[in-house]
């Protein structure tokens, strides 16, 4: 049984269903990646796991418990962290304050976690007193991921973390994400850059119009000629 799973999810934002019986799961210490063409419902699937849209059917389980009825806030308190695609840092607050906000629900000492984060993202230690709004795009993404990690989540969900950053920064971000996996966190990611993402993925989901088209390990999907032809541009 998997750590966080959404089974047979169907629903949308009112109107037509965006998800049609889609299933996603991720385990501890694993990177799962959702890829697919535009409008496939990738981000929607992730938001469904977080409880940001009403599902008509389907069940979300976390640590073996049914959490379908919980609000997003409650799910965050349970140990799920989410990094939105845009507007994912507090621009008017310093890097350190962003980290503090990430740990908002914790009442223990956060010093140790902050040190771990600084080890993971050395640039943040350097810029800790700077306003997040003044950082470059890549640095901001790091702040965003770091903010989410501050709550010591069991699951980290990233919505297109590499959107709009340069290829070099993208590689660096993927390296960081691999390092985060080392700490035992389950990582679920939506990615446009399917090829690179599947390279680091332990598990990949190819969604098409709200349904699972292919599900396998990242390597296997990369090797699958049909996936290559249809979704990876040959």
């Amino acid at each position, binding site marked *: 049984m998997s750590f966080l799973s959404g089974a047979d999810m169907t629903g949308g934002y009112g109107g037509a269903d965006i998800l049609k019986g889609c299933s996603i799961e991720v385990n501890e210490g694993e990177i799962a990646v959702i890829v697919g063409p535009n409008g496939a419902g990738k981000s929607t699937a992730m938001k469904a796991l977080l409880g940001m849209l009403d599902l008509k059917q389907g069940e979300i389980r976390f640590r073996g418990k049914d959490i379908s009825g919980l609000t997003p*806030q409650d799910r965050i308190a349970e140990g799920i962290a989410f990094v*939105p695609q845009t507007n994912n*840092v*507090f*621009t*008017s607050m310093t890097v350190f*304050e962003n980290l503090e*906000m990430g740990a908002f629900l914790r009442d223990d000492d956060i010093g140790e976690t902050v040190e771990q984060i600084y080890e993971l993202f050395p640039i943040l230690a350097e810029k800790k007193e700077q306003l997040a709004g003044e950082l470059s795009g890549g640095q901001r993404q790091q702040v965003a991921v770091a903010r989410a990690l501050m*709550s010591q989540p069991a699951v980290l969900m990233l919505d297109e973390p590499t959107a709009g950053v340069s290829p070099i920064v993208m590689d660096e971000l993927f390296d960081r994400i691999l390092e985060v996996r080392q700490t035992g966190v389950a990582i679920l990611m939506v990615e446009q850059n399917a090829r690179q993402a599947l390279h680091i993925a332990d598990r990949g989901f190819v969604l098409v119009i709200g349904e699972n088209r292919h599900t396998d390990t990242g390597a296997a999907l990369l090797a699958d000629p049909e996936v290559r032809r249809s979704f990876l541009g040959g």
Partner: protein
Amino acid sequence: MEAVTDFTSALVLLLNFIVVPGLSYGSQLALGALGITLVFGILRFANFAHGDTMAFGTMITILVTWWLQSKGVSLGPLPTALLALPAGILLTILLLVITDKSVYRYYRQRKAVPVTFMIASMGVMFMTNGIVRFVIGPNDQRFLDGERFIVRARDFKAATGLAEGLSIKVSQGLTIVIAIILVALLFWFLQKTRTGKAMRAYSDNEDLALLSGVDPDRVVLVTWIITAILATIAGTLYGLDKSFKPFTYLQLLLPMFAAAIVGGIGNPIGAILGGYVIAFSEVIVTYAYKKVFIYLLPQSLEPEGLLQLLSTDYKFAVSFVILVLVLLVRPTGILRGKVL
């Protein structure tokens, strides 16, 4: 030697008629604008009821002051109103929390557009205004007691031998001191405490704050509490310095809005800066410089007119012109505030 005393006299004149009144009026505006900017930053609407919130808090303070005075309680040289302030603050908090629960919360839950909140705030303004006029009447009320002056013009003249006197009223001194303490406390709260940071985060990025586990109801509640404290104190200080009249407080809306926008709406430092910018502009533009120039210029060049740029009746025009200039040149305000 005479040139030096003349120059000093001119300086004292400016100090007496521009710097001191500007500082105290600016502090009052800054405290008022802080309330507007906080509500704007957290609840995201321009609160038209703010002037009347100030009037309400001040009214309660006045009533309690009168009661204390009738019991013979006094603070010696300081105005008794200071003792009555906590009561005014408490009831104003109550008023704002009740309005939030009964009016604004409904629209918040439905994620209504800011304009709806604004119109609702007009309704609240009407009601608060009605209550204030009903309880204390529409007329001028004075409630200042204790010592009147910190520095008297007569004493100053005697001490310095200058022809011009400097007078600082107790209410002016109090305003400046209290404003400094209050602003320091507010910034400490916003920068250092958990709730303060949650408020800043919520104002910066509501969705992300929710994702971080910030409780929106709590943030809103604290915002109203702080607004009530600021509004009551600002209103009481203004009333002590000038006088209390419900209509004046309604009219204060314009300079307060101007201060908040000029500084950069949603930005607390901007609100304070804006308050002083507006206040000093008003005072500088409406002061008659005749006497200053008499001191500074040789007798042959003495000016004929009052040398007043604008009559005091147009002080609202000053806030407005500055507001328009800022809107034209830099719509985000001096310190970048929120842009839609």
